[in-house]
């Protein structure tokens, strides 16, 4: 068995040290760290890791936790099949907020 790693994101296999390295390379927002490391982009859509990642980022940047900006989370919050969506009588209407990034 390989040396024990600390997993920040289990879905995409992002370790805490990889997250810190990415911060060291100049990615200082949760959004860019997500895009660079893959944290929060897996099957669970960040349920398992984004709160932890944001807490770590607040420590790295030495800022109050309330100032860490959450990434844009678009619906749905879990993977669905086309068959499930096609079985809906009324398709979801309306726009997600902030869908500009």
């Amino acid at each position, binding site marked *: 068995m*390989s040396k024990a790693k600390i997993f920040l994101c289990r879905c995409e296999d992002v370790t805490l040290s990889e997250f810190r390295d990415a911060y060291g390379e100049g990615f200082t927002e949760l959004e860019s760290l997500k895009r660079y490391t893959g944290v929060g982009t897996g099957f669970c859509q960040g349920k398992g890791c984004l709160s*932890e990642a944001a807490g770590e980022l607040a420590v790295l940047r030495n800022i109050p936790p309330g100032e860490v900006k959450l990434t844009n989370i678009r619906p749905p919050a879990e993977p669905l099949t086309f068959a499930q969506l096609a079985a809906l009588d009324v398709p979801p209407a309306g726009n997600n*907020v902030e869908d500009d990034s």
Partner: protein
Amino acid sequence: MASDKVHIRFEGKTLECRSDTTVAVALWENGVRCLSRSPKYGRPRGVTCARGHCTACLMRVDNIPNVRTCELPVREGMEIQRQDAGAFYAAPMQKVLAAGSAFFPVGFYYKWFTKPATVSRLFLNGIRPLTGVGRLPGPEHATRVLPPASDPQDPTAASATDLGRFDTVIVGAGPSGLAAAEKATGRVLILDDHEIPGGQRYGALRRLAEDQGKILDRFDVLRSSLERIEKLRDQFSTRNDVTFLQGTRAIAGYHPDHLLLRREDRLQSVKFDTLIWAAGALDTLGLFPGNDTPGLLGPRALYRLLVRDGLQVKGMHVLIIGGGLDFWLSAALLDVAGAHLSLVVTNSDDPSEIPAAVDRKWPLNTGLILDNISGMGEQKLRASFSPDGSQSIRHDSQMTMDADLAVICNRAKPAYDVPFQLGGDVTLQPDLGGFALSDDSSLVAVGEAGGNLPGDPAHPADEVNIP
């Protein structure tokens, strides 16, 4: 618990299992804990959240990839295969991979391999069977149509998939959701992913109430928790004007007032004037080396596996680490189920329960912090601890404990994704355990989602404020 047996096929073998459980638990009870391999490091992963959130239990079932096996009931003749767990991830291949990683520096872009197209196709055709990924469902599933909603007793489920508009929609029927329902007026819908109202701990507490040894009488925190939930359930049972949707969860929010719900495979759509977000908290295992080891669970996953799926733990050695209501509930539940316990109290805010634990002859340690957990083969794990510096108890140096199962009871974190999608103000609030919704006019967070802890006497769940 007597139940019929069914047989499932797993990678060429036929396994016998109870008919009233899930695929993940059936495999566990047949000695298969590694359900998948992680995508980058190929590490073994076992059932973790037991509520269909995480990647760990995704398997190929009857030729359909990415099925959540922690929520899938077993069925006679089912064909189960692991994904991403082929020869590619065997230990020798890992060494080859590690040696090759020098050729892929930071910044390497995988699309450099897309030209010429013939080479790319050869590369992909070769690599996919090796990893076990990229196999699509068979053509017989291309036109798979969902069966009609199954429960004719429930008018809302049997009718169209659009439930219309409600004055108040309450997500979560735990203590705080029920308390909110008591105060809500007009047309009210309340939904929960359990079959009955009461919340994530209710089934486990009920199980303790049935115990002959009257374990509940020893632990005030557990008995008062059950009494509060029973009282709220009694009040709720008189509310014939409130619609309860069982086995349903909110899985998407469309700004400003539109929710998408999922019940098993079926989606439903509903609109609301006020949303009360009382969704149960999520387990937080914490950040330490080996925090992905199979056999490591949070308390909420434990309740689901033991109470909902009937996981047999008789004779197992179980290590419980942490503190708080879930720590004692996990310990009592496992004790009643016949497991051998080892307790490590790392959060000693609530020492009042310790005498009762000593009475039950639970081996109990304090003054330790968890350093790491590692897997010891398929079925065992080992936890290493070191002294936390408090002088109450002296430990010479690092100590290790072996177990079949480890339960980590940390501060849980709120679910926040759907409120964010609805335009809610979601900020990082470490005292709530992570990102959490702050109330605004039409979105209200209560219970563990909003900082009013059901187990916390300072914030009784029945004092939630509904505007």
